């Protein structure tokens, strides 16, 4: 296996008396896109600053291509990484001056710099913006210039702190796709931090879930999304309802699970007699006034207990012997006349449900060691 570009080992970091990071092992291999995913305050940005050698860890190793950075933290090693902060900030001068900033710091000869600049300008389609002042650019253009400014340096590892979070949803998707393509084309090794699951799923070759300063789960995004190893991870990736039951039958990966005197069908590799936690995404639960004849395997007669108005949707809390939640749009709420106390049939496909090892036997991340 190739030598990792970056290795972090036995890292512990404190702010005052508060332990904000405790990472046993974290590696980044050449060409990889690693996404550090976690809620706000998990210590993601701190981990990036420590990994990019901008902050000295309280203890532990940060190793670039076999060379431990501390205690010396030589400039030559620090220059192998580039970190883009969450808010794009620009230096006095034109877009072009900003794009060349990192190369000039490294003493790159003007003719070599010009070639790198031309390449990156073409990749990010920045030609018309070169002579403009960064202040004149839109938010999307600013972030493109920001990304190009880092990638033109071709660092060993590029660290990005929530690079798309300040953009509108439409711009975000567009720029994310553009960045993803360019990253693949250039083979740039990247470590990106985000708290948005779609961003993590789209950009990650490998995902690290960080909660309270600790790595709770690591793996390919599809693995993490399919089998969250921890209730906190499940909640983080949008599984709102967690129901415990016992597997009574298993055929070809389809499990029959007894829950609160009812049977439920879900996917998973568990065995009869095993206690499991079944996880639901509220967006996959549907409501009907009468039980329809469909291919949906799971139907439960449920009472509406609460309706919460979210930004664009309503979150309907249901009681069907166990707790369930469903996202509904306003027209759906009006059409079905959903109200507290009314009864509905709640349906969810077996393929939308996942049965994982019983979460209630797992420990929550240590609250006392939480990140700031």
């Amino acid at each position: 296996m190739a030598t990792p570009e970056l290795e972090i080992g036995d890292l512990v970091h404190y702010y005052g008396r508060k332990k904000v990071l405790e990472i046993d092992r974290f590696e980044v291999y050449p060409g990889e896109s690693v996404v550090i995913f976690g809620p706000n305050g998990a210590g993601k940005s701190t981990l990036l600053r420590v990994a990019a050698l901008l902050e000295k860890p309280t203890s532990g190793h940060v190793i670039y291509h076999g060379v431990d950075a501390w205690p010396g933290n030589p400039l030559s090693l620090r220059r192998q990484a580039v970190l883009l902060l969450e808010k794009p900030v620009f230096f006095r001068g034109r877009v072009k001056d900003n794009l060349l900033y990192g190369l000039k710091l490294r003493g790159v000869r003007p003719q070599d710099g010009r070639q790198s600049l031309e390449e990156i300008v073409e990749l990010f389609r920045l030609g018309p913006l070169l002579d403009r002042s960064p202040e004149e650019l839109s938010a999307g253009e600013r972030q493109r210039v920001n990304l190009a400014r880092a990638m033109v340096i071709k660092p060993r590892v590029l660290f990005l702190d929530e690079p798309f979070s300040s953009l509108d949803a439409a711009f975000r998707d567009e720029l994310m796709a553009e960045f993803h393509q360019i990253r693949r084309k250039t083979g740039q090794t990247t470590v990106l931090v985000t708290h948005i699951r779609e961003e993590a799923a789209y950009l990650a070759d490998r995902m690290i879930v960080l909660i309270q300063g600790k790595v709770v789960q690591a793996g390919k995004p599809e693995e993490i999304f399919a089998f969250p190893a921890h209730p906190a991870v499940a909640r983080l990736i949008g599984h709102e309802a967690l129901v415990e039951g016992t597997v009574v039958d298993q055929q070809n990966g389809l499990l029959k699970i007894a829950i609160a005197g009812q049977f439920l069908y879900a996917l998973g590799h568990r065995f009869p007699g095993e206690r499991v936690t079944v996880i639901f995404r509220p967006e996959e639960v549907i409501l009907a006034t009468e039980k329809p004849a469909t291919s949906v395997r799971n139907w439960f007669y449920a009472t509406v207990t609460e309706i919460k108005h979210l930004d664009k949707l309503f979150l309907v809390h249901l009681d069907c012997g166990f707790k369930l939640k469903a996202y509904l749009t306003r027209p759906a709420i009006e059409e079905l006349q959903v109200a507290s106390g009314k009864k509905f049939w709640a349906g969810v496909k077996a393929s939308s449900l996942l049965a994982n090892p019983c979460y209630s036997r797992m420990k929550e991340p240590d609250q006392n060691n939480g990140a700031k």
Partner: protein
Amino acid sequence: MIQLSEIWPVIWLTLLISGLATIISFVLALPAALFLYFQEFPGRKIVLSLIHTGMGLPPVVVGLFVALLLWRSGPLGSLGLMYTPAAMLIAQIIIAWRIIAGLTWAALQQVDPTLILQAKALGASRLQLALTLFREARLGQISAVIAAFGAVVSEVGAVLMVGGNIKGYTRVLTTAILQETRLGNFSLAIILALILLGLSFAVNWLLTSWQQKGTKSWRLPSWK
């Protein structure tokens, strides 16, 4: 009474002493301000308070301290600098330094710290960080230079005390104006005052043009 032919050396010495004092104090104040910006150390607040107190120090008091130092029996008396242009330069450097150090530090503080962190995260060395900060705080620093030049070119107490207003040697515009006013030569005093104002305006115009270079007026908010 001063003859017109004697005015040129006075103008020249005024420009030389004020200009040199401003440049030298800027060169001395900038590293101090950068050090105060980047380095946390015990007593940093006390140093800053002392600089701010120094900004309000009457120039004549500076003159007194310099005179005490350079007086024949003083610690630096053996250098024989009292009543020389060099003594005036020393006093003016001290007067300009406290203004430039205080205002430059304030100008550096105005720069978004995220920008400096981003510079570091893009690979800037210590020196490159300082240069970036210096570039970003350009407007405020030129204001500091303008304020310092204004203070030294119009200063009279300290230069009179340590320079002695010796004709053809340490006489500058301010001390000449004082002398002619005392002698009742008001018309000449007024001419000298106008020359001083013109000189001050010319230098400030140059510095302001440099300061405003690249600032686009359309980006500024309008009254209309």
